[in-house]
Each structure stands twice: as C-alpha cells, then as structure tokens.
C-alpha cells in the first residue's frame, strides 16, 4: 500500500509574500498526492491593514471559489480536520512579507566566525547593519553606541571553537549585554547565539533578561576547519517567525493554524532543494532560484548539503532604489534588446521601488523588468557560489558547478508573456553548464512542499512526479575554448518513433531542438575541439543520453561561459534580439 494512502491527508498551504498571498490545496487522488488548485490575493502585511489575515482569508476564499470546497467556517476559522467533504486535514504556512530584519553580527575573527555568522544571516530575510569582532578598530563603548543608534532587531553572536578559549567571546557578550541593557525594554533585540558551547550558560545568565527572545544553536564553527550552518539555520528560521509574530498582525494566528510550524519561505524552499538533492543524481547539485519583490533567493544543495542565500537587496521591490550599490546600469542594459537610455533605466529603478507591486504594461517596461531579473539573479547566484562547499566539482575556476535540475520561481520568470522569455531569463542569469533541466514552479509550490516535507516526505515527491511543475527545457551548456563560429558540437537526437534530427553547433550559437512534453528520445553528442559537456574535455557518452520532452525541447546554449557580450551597445542589442527570436520571442 502506498504511503500516501496511509497518510491520506489533504493539505492547505499558505504562503504570504510581499505582494501576493497564495493558498494552495493538495489532496490524495487515486492513491497519490496531487496539487489540486491555488487561490491568490494581494498580501495585506503593509498598511492600511498591517495584518496578514485579510490577504490570507481572501486567498483561501478564492481557492474555495475555484474548488467549491469550503475551507473556512462561518466562524472565520479554518475547518480542520475535514468534515463532510469540507476543510482540510493539515495546514502549513510560510512567510516572506515585511522589510528585511535589521541585524547585527558579532563574532571573533572577521574571516572566520564573523563570516560564518554573516552567511547564517544571509539564509533569512535580514539586512546586516553592523559587525562587531576582535578585528573591529572601535572601542567597546563605540560599539555600544553603534548598536544603540542602529537598534538591530536581531543580533547573531558566533565565535570561539568548542573547547576553545572563551574569554574573547565573553568580552563581546559583555558589549552586547551593555547595549541591550541601555535599550528601552520595548526595543530589546532578539539574540541568536551559535558560538563556543562552553559559554552558553554565560550567554543565558547575561542576556536572558535583556533580550526579547534568546535562541541557542549549535556552534557554527565547532572547529576552525568545520563550518556547520544547518542546525543554526533552523534557529534563524525560528527567530524570524518569533520576530514577525511580534511585529506583524495576523502572523500569530497563522502560526497557530499551522500548529506552530510557520517558517520563512526561503527556509522552506531551501529545505525542499536539500530534500531533492538526496533523491536526485548525487554527482550533481540541485539549484533553486526564486526572484520576488522582497528578495532574490538562491538555494543549492549537493548530496544533502544546502547552501542558501536570501538577498533582499536584489529583490524587485523597495530594494531597487539601492540596487546600484551591487551592480551597474551598464550591466543591466546589456541584457536589453531595445535602445533604452541609462537615465531611463535609472529612473525606472527608483520609480519601481516606490510601487513594487506594479506590472510592466509596455514592451519597454517589460524589457527593463526582465533585464533586472537576469542581472539580480546573476549577482545573487555568483554571490552564493562563493559559499558552495569546496568539495563540489566545477569545470573551471569561476564557473558554476553542474546542476540537475534547476528549479525556478517568481512571477517575473514564471509568468513572463512567453515561455521563451522565461527560458532566456534563466539561461542568461544562471548560464548553466553541462546537461540540465530547467523546471518552472508556475504555481508557487516550492514553499508549500518545503513546509510539508518535514511532516510528510511522500507528498513533495508525489506532487513533483505528478506534472504540477512545468518542464521548460533540457539545456546543454558546452564549454569550449574556441573562436565564435567554430563548430564545437555535433548533436543527433533520435526520437521515440525513430525520426532523427541532426545539428552542428557553433561556438556563440543558441540552438533549439523540439522534443515536446510527453515524448522521449536519445541524444548523441559529439564534442569537437575538446568541448566539455560535463564528461570532461572532448568526452561524451557513446551510448547516448536518454532525454524526456519539455515544452521547449532541447536547448544548446553555446554562447560561452561566461557569456561575453560585445562592448558596443548596438551589437549587444542585436545579439539579444537574435537570441529572443531563437527562443520564440
């Protein structure tokens, strides 16, 4: 008997984003979990509501309208468990709405524990405003005044190896404690300690009464050589939930509905990517990207080891006003096929930061929005790539590791006017190498599945296998050290019906071979000039590679890694136009 029949539970999952609240229903159909339907509504975390409940109720009501199944009772409460065909058996919730949490990071050495603590901060929706360490040139009282001025909502304290010296950590604890003591009681920060375990009792006795919430996590750096963020990531997620419960109306109720399991959306997405990495080919990683209003989220997992990065400064909302600290107008403009002056793009960034929820109605606005999506995702991914485990194999320095598959979410990608545009955004931003599959999460299922995975690991697997995600394309990203125009790859695709398609791919080209969803075939790849397809330079699989169809078929992206666009803006636009035309406009 399949496990899904044993745990024949329906699940309602709510995800509260900055712009949209999604309510997604899963249920058992013919013995397997299936995605049933999703309802959505504008989020109401911001004024005038300042309470997520209205958006949650509206999203669920929309879902009720779609499914005809009553989920909320006349008493405005969730019907749980199922009663006479109405309601659901279980409920999960994820949250990303709200401004990034103002965070201070405290550690001993800036290139050891401080770096680890910063990486931990990046696993959630935070903005690091100050860093205290032994390398800090400021005196303790200046550090205290800095904390008092910045009023962080969260302080992450790391430092010291287990069994290592504790005096330096205690000194930093004293500084933090004094700053907390001097803050008004209603402004006390939450504190997450993930340092030397021998000072845990000291942390408790010094800080317990001076902070709004204290969480102790296992040491991020139990030894100098080992960094282990994963246990502390759970602590971070709990901390985020605690903070939001006290800051944002309706979050407490949502957490109650979820039985106290409300988690940050990015954490749920990361959990799902890690989970998948234990299921898929262990020789490659799994990559998940999600570009929203509140942040760009990138999650990569290699054999169960997750690297997660949340970049509020690279979201497509309020953060855009400060985007030029992280990238340049020229680097965004290079992805646009239209002739748009730099000042127009700059004005666009600032205007969009005022109205993050608006949509591009003109071709010019869409081109700018999609160029931003490419560049922000590219910057986020390159930033996270520095934190990938050292053991992960890369084809060359500066290039990404091999991933299979790559999952993408965020409406700018998944709801682009054409699937070709979705594809090109991802190809340009990620520049995948080797052979991989691009999958679109058009229904925003990843947070729901990640939240559910902890309690019911069968559900995400069965939903993934059910076709609820859209297989966008199989991508071949060769690496070749040749001049543009040189043939680098001969491709032969044998369809199930015996038909054969052949193409010779030249360096610099972008080619598409149709292989519709539902069909299958076998790919024979003959690399030329030591081209590397992920099997080593000049190597291939002589027996061929089985491929299954996707909506856009097989894409051979031989534009080079990294893609180098011409310096001349007019030629750059020509390239972008040509590529857009290739993928169907």
């Amino acid at each position, binding site marked *: 008997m399949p496990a899904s029949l044993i745990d024949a539970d329906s699940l309602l999952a709510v995800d509260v984003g900055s712009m949209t609240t999604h309510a997604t229903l899963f249920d058992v159909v013919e013995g397997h979990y299936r995605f049933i339907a999703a309802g959505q509504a504008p989020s109401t975390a*911001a*004024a005038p509501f*300042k309470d997520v409940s209205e958006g949650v109720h509206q999203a669920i009501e929309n879902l009720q309208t779609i499914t005809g199944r009553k989920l909320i009772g006349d008493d405005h409460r969730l019907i749980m468990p199922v009663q006479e065909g109405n309601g659901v058996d279980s409920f999960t919730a994820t949250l990303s709405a709200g401004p990034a949490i103002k965070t201070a990071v405290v550690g001993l050495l800036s290139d050891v524990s401080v770096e680890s603590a910063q990486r931990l901060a990046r696993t959630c929706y935070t903005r690091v405003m100050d860093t205290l360490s032994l390398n800090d040139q400021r005196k303790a009282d200046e550090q205290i005044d800095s904390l008092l001025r910045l009023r962080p909502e969260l302080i992450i304290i790391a430092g010291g190896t287990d069994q290592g010296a504790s005096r330096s950590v205690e000194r930093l604890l004293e500084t933090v404690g004094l700053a907390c003591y001097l803050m*008004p009681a209603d402004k006390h920060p939450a504190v997450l300690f993930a340092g030397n375990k021998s000072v845990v009792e000291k942390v408790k006795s010094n800080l317990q009464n001076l902070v709004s919430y204290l969480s102790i996590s296992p040491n991020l750096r139990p030894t100098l050589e080992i960094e282990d963020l994963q246990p502390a990531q759970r602590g971070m997620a709990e901390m985020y939930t605690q903070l939001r419960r006290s800051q944002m109306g309706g979050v407490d109720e949502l957490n109650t509905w979820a039985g106290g399991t409300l988690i940050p959306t990015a954490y749920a997405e990361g959990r799902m990517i890690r989970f998948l990495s234990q299921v898929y080919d262990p020789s490659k990683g799994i990559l998940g990207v999600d570009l929203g209003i509140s942040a760009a989220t990138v999650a990569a997992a290699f054999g169960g080891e997750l690297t997660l990065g949340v970049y509020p400064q690279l979201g497509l909302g309020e953060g855009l006003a400060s985007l030029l600290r992280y990238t340049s107008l020229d680097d965004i403009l290079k992805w646009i096929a239209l002739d748009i002056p730099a000042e*127009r793009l700059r004005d666009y960034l*600032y205007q969009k930061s005022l*109205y993050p929820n*608006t949509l*591009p*109605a003109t071709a010019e606005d869409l081109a700018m929005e999609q160029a931003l999506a490419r560049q922000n995702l590219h910057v986020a991914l390159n930033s996270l790539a520095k934190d990938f485990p050292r053991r992960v194999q890369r084809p060359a320095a500066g290039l990404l590791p091999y991933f299979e598959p790559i999952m993408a979410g965020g409406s700018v990608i998944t709801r682009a006017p054409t699937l070709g545009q979705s594809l090109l955004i991802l190809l340009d931003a990620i520049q995948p190498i080797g052979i991989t599959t691009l999958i679109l999460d058009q229904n925003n299922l990843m947070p729901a599945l990640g939240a559910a995975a902890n309690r019911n690991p069968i559900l995400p697997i069965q939903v993934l296998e059910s076709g609820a995600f859209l297989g966008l394309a199989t991508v071949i990203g060769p690496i070749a050290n040749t001049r543009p125009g040189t043939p680098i790859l001969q491709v032969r695709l044998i369809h199930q019906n015996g038909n054969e398609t052949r193409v010779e791919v030249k360096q610099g080209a972008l080619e598409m071979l149709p292989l519709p969803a539902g069909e299958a075939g076998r790919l024979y790849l003959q690399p030329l000039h030591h081209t590397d397809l992920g099997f080593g330079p000049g190597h291939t699989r002589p027996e061929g590679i089985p491929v299954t169809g996707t909506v856009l078929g097989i894409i051979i992206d031989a534009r080079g890694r990294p893609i180098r666009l011409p310096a001349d803006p007019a030629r750059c636009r020509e390239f972008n136009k040509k590529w857009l035309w290739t993928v169907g406009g």
Partner: protein
Amino acid sequence: MLAPVTHLLPLTTVQRERLLPVPGQVFAHLDQKISPLDVIAEAHLGGQHLLLDVARQLRVPPEKADRLIKCKAGDQVVKNQVIAQSRDLIPQTIRAVQDGKVLLVGGGKVLLEVGETTFELHAGVPGVVTRVVQDRGIEITFSGSLVQGVWGNGQVDSGMILPLLNSPEEVLAAKRLDVSQRGAVILAGACSDPATLQTASELPVRGLILGSLSPALLAQAAQMHFPIVVIDGFDGRPLNTTAFKLLTSNAKREVTVNAEIADRYSGIRPEIYIPLPVAGEPPRLREVETFAPNQPVHLIRAPHAGAVGILVNLKPGLTTMPSGLRVQAAEVKLDTGEQVVVPLANLEVLG
C-alpha cells in the same frame, strides 16, 4: 480586488498619531489647538557612552578594581572628577573626561553616559489634540485639504504656497527662484538641476512640493533643511492634474509640508496639509477601497504614468497588455477624454 489608495482631497478630516520613539514627556493636552512646529513631546535618548576599564588601567583584578572605584550607579560626575584611584605609593588616578552620569559599576568597569540627546517631537500636523497617549504622544485631528506624496526628506515646515508653474509638466529652473519667494512653500513640476535645490536652500524657502525629482538629486534633497515632498515620482513625470488643481487652487494659502520618510509597512507618507475653515466635521479618510466603476484613479506606470481618470469598468478575466502580460485590468477614462485599458496593479484609487 483591494486597491491601494492615495489621498488627494479638497476637504477631509484626518487623524494622525504622533508618538515618541521611546517613552518621554508629553506636553500637549486634550483639545489643544496645535501648530505643526509645536513641540508636543520630548524624550531623553541618552548620550554617548564611555566604558572605563578600571581594572585594566590600574592593572588589578576586577574584584580589586571594584573596591577602588569611587562612584556608584546613578551618580552625576563632572569633568576631572576622580572615578577610581589605586592605593599605590604613587597612586594612579582615573578621572572623568567630561561631565556625565554613572550608569553601571561592576566587573572592574564603569559605564558613563556623557552628553545628552533630547528628542523633540514636533506636531507635524496642524489641528486639535483628540487623544493623549500617556508618555508617548498624541493624536491630532485636522480638517482641510490633504495631498499625499511618495517621497519626503524628513523635514517639516509651514508657509504660504506659491505655485511656480502654469502647467503640471513645467520644470523648475534655478532662475525661477528669487528673493521674493523667501519663506514661501514652492510648488513646481519636475526638478532635475542641483542648482535649483541649492538656490532654494539659500533663499531659503520653507518647503518645496514637486511633481517629480531626478534620482540624481535624492542625496542632495535628503540633506536640505527645508521639507521637500515629491508627489508623483522620480522619472520626470508631470505633477498629476488632480494634485495640480488642488494645490494651485489654494495658492497663497498657509500650508504645512510634512515631508515624512515614506514607509509602506507602517503607512507613513509625506503629506501636505491645507487648513480650511469648516462647519462641522468633513468626511474622514477611507483607507481601504476595492476597485469599482466611477472611482477616480491615478495611473502609476507607463504608458500613461501620472495620468488621472475615472475607472469605467473592470474587465472580466485576464487582458493581454502590449507587453504581452495577461493581467486583471480596467478601462479608465483619462481626464483628457481618452479611454485606455490599464492593469489593476498599475492603478491607485484617489480618495
């Protein structure tokens, strides 16, 4: 569908809470008539801190240092006052480097607070105190015209409003400003020249209300000591015609420019208040709207960015835009008479 709302109202009643960031003393009282620059409350935000490591400086263990410290928590100290002294043959002395207050003593250390920052809370809104929040602030009720903006530089002031534009799209040049406008609140279209802000600062003016401001001037505008409110945005768009009509029709009236820094989550926005004589209480603000026909709306994104009109009807299902996106949309009759289809996400209700 829920609609975002921007208030551009000729006559309304507004209630605004003005609260201290930390508990303090509230001076205003119930039913008091308030001017925008009145200090209605103040709070002690503390000064700088000095952590004196007595044990380290005197080279003794912390327990011993505690016995050498000659002050206790709560004491006021003056510059050069002895904080601690060793019992050596030639005693070493640690003195206060400036006047201050002892906050904590222990572990061989002394924490001093020196200097003091008093935060004064200005009313920011003209009106009457209708509620006092103990130790935190007040609620002010205002009646008159209200115009909300999208960006403010954190300053507040009042003055006579002087329109320096004949049409909403006029760009304000530095040469339009002269000494006759000193002390006035200037209303203008777009501003893209740093010399304009510099000249306005030198006059000085009491405020600047702009349709749009070039992003290149944001850092300069944030430093100005007079309030600047941007009504429509940063992309050179003209002042929207509803705000243009409302503000120019009040030319030479006293206005308050409260250029609060906007915050989407708290709902704080920069606002312009024009007190008007009223009989009874004008209608209160409606903060929550759902899109419906006959609503006045503001188009906030291309291709008609900044235009205003009336929502004619909500289109069923999804509509394909020129960008190719399929979205929920509405037909809007612009004030130019043209009828256009706009994504609902790109509309805000004026009310």
